[in-house]
């Protein structure tokens, strides 16, 4: 398993754990009295879908898809690393900024940064993996 895949899969596992802990916290009896726990639903959903499922797919696809060439089996790995860094930066900013917006804090540029980072991460992954989606 290449280093980038290991980073992606281990980060995905951390999001999996974090999201399910967040899900449990939202169901606690005291959740109704803690405003923060009442606004976490969209963040919880994105930690699961982007942080866990999508990041796991990124890692496994970069490992298992047909090789780009014998010399460069994974194509331009800088794109893969960019996807890893941007996806996690975007999600971590979101983890802070999205609940704060729901609680009335106006920080549009923080959410813009999160949105841009997650978008660029997805597009970098596609650029990296697209030439490898072919017959062996």
């Amino acid at each position, binding site marked *: 398993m290449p280093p980038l895949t290991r980073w992606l899969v281990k980060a995905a596992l951390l999001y999996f754990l974090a999201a399910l802990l967040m899900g449990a916290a939202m169901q606690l009896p005291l959740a109704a009295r803690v405003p923060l726990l009442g606004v976490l639903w969209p963040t919880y959903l994105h930690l699961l879908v982007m942080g866990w499922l999508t990041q796991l797919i990124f890692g496994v696809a970069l490992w298992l898809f047909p090789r780009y060439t014998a010399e460069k089996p994974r194509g331009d790995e800088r794109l893969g690393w960019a996807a890893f860094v941007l996806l996690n930066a975007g999600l971590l900013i979101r983890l802070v900024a999205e609940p704060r917006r729901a609680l009335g804090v106006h920080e549009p540029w923080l959410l813009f940064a999160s949105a841009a980072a997650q978008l660029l991460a997805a597009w970098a992954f596609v650029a990296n993996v697209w030439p490898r989606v072919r*017959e062996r």
Partner: protein
Amino acid sequence: MPRLSIWMVRTALLALMAGTALGAVLLAAPGFGWPGVLRWRPLHAELLLVGWLVQLTLGVSWWILPRFRSGAERGPEGLGWLAFGLVNAGAILAGVGRSVGLDGLALAGRSAEALAAAAYAARAWPRVKPFR
């Protein structure tokens, strides 16, 4: 990777690009005084859940599941191609229908997605067997 898997995985990658682009607008735009875009949240969800995650699963499993020893190695592809068409039509119709409030369109989309699942499962079912 067989041709059907290539089409499914590449279309899933396009859905990921479109879904994240729309998601970025949904996340950032309301902060800049553009809350009307939030009505497109159902399309964002369909693109990423069905167009990306579900379709990628279909494409990779079509490639990876055990093959047959005689005849076409992955069986007849007709139902697989039908699933490919239905899952994409379904994601777009359901996403647009729910976003603009057209219940009939949303029902048609969700029905197409269900038919895609049936077509795919019928073709994949006999391949769920020990490797030989």
